[in-house]
Structures are given as structure tokens and as C-alpha cells.
């Protein structure tokens, strides 16, 4: 199990993961901090489940996605919904045409369902099919079908 100092260090190093998940799932920037705190609290509470079998970043990704997907605040309008992929997915800009294409892709991803967005996010972060399937809790075959369907949908939306 990680010590408090190691945990803090790990979170600092991989805070981009938390930030990315928040950007994908929360629309209102005022609520970003709430979800961030929630993810960190869950990560801290669940630190004993981290045994170093996977990378810390993968474990943190799992906690962040689990928290974001089941996150719900009663006293405010429901979030857990639909925000575009982080803007920095389309940055930095190379050429205007490329930038346009990436913006179109970004908007298409934004229109995907909650779970499909998680799949895309993990895929874009270079996780392998077995790793994504494991995080989602489905079989690799099931994921492959899902992935083909997502790619097809994105293509349709962009075209």
C-alpha cells in the first residue's frame, strides 16, 4: 500500500488524468472542483486497493472514471453529462485544416454516450483493448464490437 506522501506524489504526477475525466464529463466549470475532490477522496479512501499490480495512472484512471460515471449531486442540476473532450485534445494547432478536422472530431465525440466517451478517452490515451475491457468490465470481443461501432458512428457524424 502507498504511503500518504507517495499517494500525493502519484496524484500530482497524474493529475492530468483527473482533469481529463472531469473535462469530458462535466459541463459546468463551477462544478469541476466538486468532482475533482470527489475523485481524490475516493482515490484516498480506496488506496488500500492499489497493490501495484497495475500502474498508478491506470488505477487512478479507473477511480476517476468510476467516480465521474456514478457521480450525482442532488442539490444541483444533474451533471455527469456531456461536455466535449478536453480542448487540449485538439491543441496545439498544426495547420488550419487539421485543426478544423480535429474540432469536428471533438464535436462528434462530444455527442457520444457517457460510456462510449470513456472508451474513446481510454483508447486515445493508448490503452490496449484488454486494458480498456478490464476497466469497463466487459470482454475484449465485446469491446471490439463497441469500438467498431463507435468508429463507424464518428465517421458518420463527421461526414
Amino acid at each position: 500500500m502507498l504511503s500518504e506522501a507517495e499517494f500525493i506524489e502519484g496524484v500530482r504526477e497524474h493529475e492530468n488524468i483527473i482533469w481529463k475525466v472531469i473535462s469530458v464529463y462535466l459541463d459546468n466549470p463551477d462544478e469541476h472542483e466538486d468532482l475533482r475532490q470527489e475523485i481524490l477522496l475516493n482515490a484516498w479512501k480506496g488506496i488500500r486497493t492499489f497493490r501495484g499490480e497495475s500502474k498508478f495512472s491506470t488505477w487512478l484512471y479507473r477511480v476517476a472514471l468510476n467516480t465521474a460515471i456514478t457521480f450525482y449531486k442532488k442539490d444541483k442540476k444533474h451533471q455527469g453529462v456531456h461536455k466535449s473532450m478536453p480542448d487540449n485534445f485538439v491543441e496545439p494547432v498544426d495547420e488550419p485544416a487539421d485543426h478544423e478536422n480535429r474540432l469536428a472530431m471533438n464535436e462528434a465525440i462530444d455527442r457520444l454516450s457517457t460510456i462510449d466517451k470513456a472508451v474513446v478517452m481510454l483508447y486515445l490515451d493508448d490503452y490496449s483493448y484488454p486494458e480498456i475491457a478490464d476497466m469497463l468490465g466487459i470482454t475484449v470481443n465485446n469491446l471490439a464490437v463497441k469500438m467498431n461501432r463507435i468508429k463507424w458512428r464518428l465517421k458518420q457524424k463527421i461526414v
Partner: protein
Amino acid sequence: MELEDLRKHINAKARESYAVASAISSSAVFDAGSRSVSLLDKMLNSIRWELAFAAAFALGCLLVAISANSLPVVVFLVLLSAYSFAFSLYLYRLHHRTTSHVLSTGSIRASVSGTIELIENFTRLYLRLSTSFVPAIFVAAFIAGLLDFIEKGYHLTEIPYFSLILYSIIAIIWILLMRKFTNWWLNRIYGRYLLELKRRLKEIDNNE
């Protein structure tokens, strides 16, 4: 552009941007003493309060029963105390299960289905227990009344049946109203959240 191109682009360049984003975010990893705002944690808090209340109520009833002189009052209080004690045991179990789930870091599917199961169990049993509290009071009061009746030297054949029927009607109406209100209340708090989670679970399983 296809997803594959975007992935290559991100792998090549976006990590610099993530570094910027990380630098922007708060320097403190998390605020000490910060509190959870999720519905699941609010549920956990609610269970804690109910557990404390049920345990205090059970203990209070028992203490008053010890010092009471009248047998019907003692029976009434002991029955209520036993009921509240059973309720608090159940709440303790539920609290333990909820805490274990909140700490879970399994797959997304397990997390979503676990949350659904937890809330459904919580609402179902909360509904059963809270609505059974009213009949428990009525039954305890009836037994106490009956004992009082016998204690005063009356015979069972002298029971005023009209009062008994009226008492039963009031009890049934109260129980039904209580059940309806609790059901509405639970649905208001957890209904939409449950629907949303079920939709997500379907999304995970669905491949069409």
C-alpha cells in the same frame, strides 16, 4: 480524420498540453477536511443519522421501560425497543455494505451495477422498515391496551369491537399513507439517479 489519426496526434503532441493543465490546477492535492457531495455519500450520511437515531430510540425506550410501573407501558416500550434495535442492526449492516462499495475500485460495470444494487436494496428495505414502523407501534399499542384491559379486570368478551374496528381502519389508512409518502420521497431523491445508472449499465452491455 479518423479516431486513429486523432490518437496519433494526441500521442505526439497533447502531453505538453496536459502538463499545462496540470500546472493550472490547484497546488494542493486535496483540501484537508473536504467533504463529499455525491448522492451516495449523502445516502451514507443519512444511514449514519438513522442508525444513531434508531439506537438512541431503542436505548431510550428500554430505559423508560425499566423505570415504568405499568405492565402495558412496559410491554409497549419493550416491543418498540426491540423493533428499533432490529432496525439499527440492519442499518449497521447496510452502512458497512455501502462503505465497502464506496471504497470499491473495480470495473466501471461493477461500480455502476453495484451502485444500482445498493440503492435499490436501500430504498426497498427503507420503505419496508419505515412503513412497518407504524404497524409496529399500532400492534404494540394494541397489545398494551389489551393487557391494560385485562389488568383492569375486564373480560375479553367485553372488548368494544366498534373501537377496535375504528382503530384498525385508522391504522390501515395511516400505513398506506405512510407507504405512499415514503415511496414518493425515495423516488424523488433516488429515482432519477437510478434511471440514469440503469441507462449507463445498459449502454455498457449493449452492443447494437
